[in-house]
């Protein structure tokens, strides 16, 4: 059951083909990893799907509906949500506000001017619940700018998750954190996502993480798909391993 489909998606920057006719399928309910070396085109693909970039050609279908030319807001409303590789938080706002804002925005309450944000108990309850799921309960009053790197990563996912997406893209949710934090983050993220029955696509470098948490792994190289399969299938694929370690394809 395909939730998302791209058809021959292309995007070129100068002479670099960041997305070279990609046909990408995400099935409902799966936890999928997108892997590949730096510059393979993973982030570009997510940017295209989230309407951060416009494709040069090709089609994007969500729930069998063509959304290629819809806006960011439309796609969020449809349920396509993403986080960012470099943590993108509202540093001047508290941890609580960061998450609450997602809920306000989702519920169309963000335009309310005459109500105190802290006094919306429905939103409050939900925000605290979400933060609880991500293990950030003790930090709710801290400004997001004052969090440690690992917590920022978690909050970044929490902000996206609070939008209650149907399809969640996480761009390197564990980059820049220590190994043991990494496991913690991935444990938290994957359990929350699975519990919430959210379809998730994770861009990730760490193959241990990828193998451990993914239902399916798609590998990109130079703008196109190189491999697609379960962790076991990918593990067995020799080409993949050499690419990831940086050897030229031919060798």
């Amino acid at each position, binding site marked *: 059951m395909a939730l998302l489909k791209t058809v021959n998606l292309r995007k070129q*920057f*100068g*002479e*670099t083909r960041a997305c070279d006719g990609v046909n990408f399928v995400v099935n409902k309910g799966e936890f999928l990893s997108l892997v590949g*070396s*730096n*510059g393979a085109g993973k982030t570009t693909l997510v940017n295209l799907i989230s309407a951060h970039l416009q494709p040069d050609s090709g089609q994007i279908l969500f729930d069998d509906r063509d959304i290629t030319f819809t806006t960011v807001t439309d796609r969020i409303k449809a349920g396509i949500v993403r986080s960012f590789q470099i943590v993108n938080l509202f540093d001047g706002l508290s941890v609580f506000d960061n998450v609450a804002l997602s809920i306000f925005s989702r519920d169309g309450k963000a335009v309310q001017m005459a109500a105190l944000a802290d006094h919306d108990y429905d939103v409050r309850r939900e925000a605290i619940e979400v933060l609880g799921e991500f293990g950030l309960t003790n930090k709710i009053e801290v400004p997001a*700018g004052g969090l440690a*790197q690992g917590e920022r990563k978690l909050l970044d996912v929490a902000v996206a998750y609070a939008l209650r997406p149907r399809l969640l893209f996480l761009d*390197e949710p564990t*980059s*820049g*954190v*220590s190994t043991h934090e*990494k496991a913690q983050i991935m444990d938290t993220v994957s359990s929350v996502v699975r519990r919430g029955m959210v379809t998730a696509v994770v861009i*990730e*470098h*760490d*193959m*241990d*993480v*990828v193998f451990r948490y993914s239902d399916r792994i798609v590998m990109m190289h130079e703008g196109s798909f190189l491999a697609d399969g379960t962790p076991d299938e990918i593990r067995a694929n020799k080409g993949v391993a050499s690419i*990831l*370690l*940086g*050897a*030229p*394809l031919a060798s």
Partner: protein
Amino acid sequence: MLLEVKGINTYRGPAHILHGVSISVDKDEVVALVGRNGAGRTTIIESVTGLLPVRSGQILFRDEEITSLPPHRRAKRGIGYAPENSGIFPELTVAENLMISRWLAQKTERGAAGDGNTEARAFTVFPEVRQLVDRQGQNLSGGQKKMVAIARAMALAPYLLILDEAFEGLAPAVVKRFREAVMTIKAMGISLLIAESNLVSAATMADRLYVVDRGEIVFHGKPQQALADDQVMRTLRG
């Protein structure tokens, strides 16, 4: 030692990025800094070039302390630099991009030696650049920009050339061309410090390499040792 970095701590804004990093580059040596995105390679490089101030630690270049010198004074002492995004001035022609380095080279000991035409050496490395001199920076392709960036750093007549992700986003054939260039440059008596995310690629060029992870040097040694080191491989994969 040509370059000695001793236990530097560097911050980006409030974030503590480098934790006591020490590296060195010797004369006639190609040294690679290997690490994943966000590991701290670029921060090390910017600490060496002076674009980021270091909080503590020491940087010596040709046995002189340069820790608190501004970037332009370091460049004049012979540190050439080609950044990750190549840093080509978009509204300057390639000739003008090269000129800046050439003028400065005339004021340096090394640049003044010989006929002073430091561009000529740059052109021997990348003859293609000669055809591009009238183009504006913004009209170059990514690969061309990278070539010009290296040529420009060469025109400075450096003792040390620092390349940050010099091969990123290049077609395999072009990468090969760049690797040869590195060897040519080394043969000219210029040491290189190369930042790479790709261990195998780095290993083919470097005499020595450092593996960086989370702002620390986690491995230091010959490329073969690195490739053989399971821990290193794990770090680099994730």
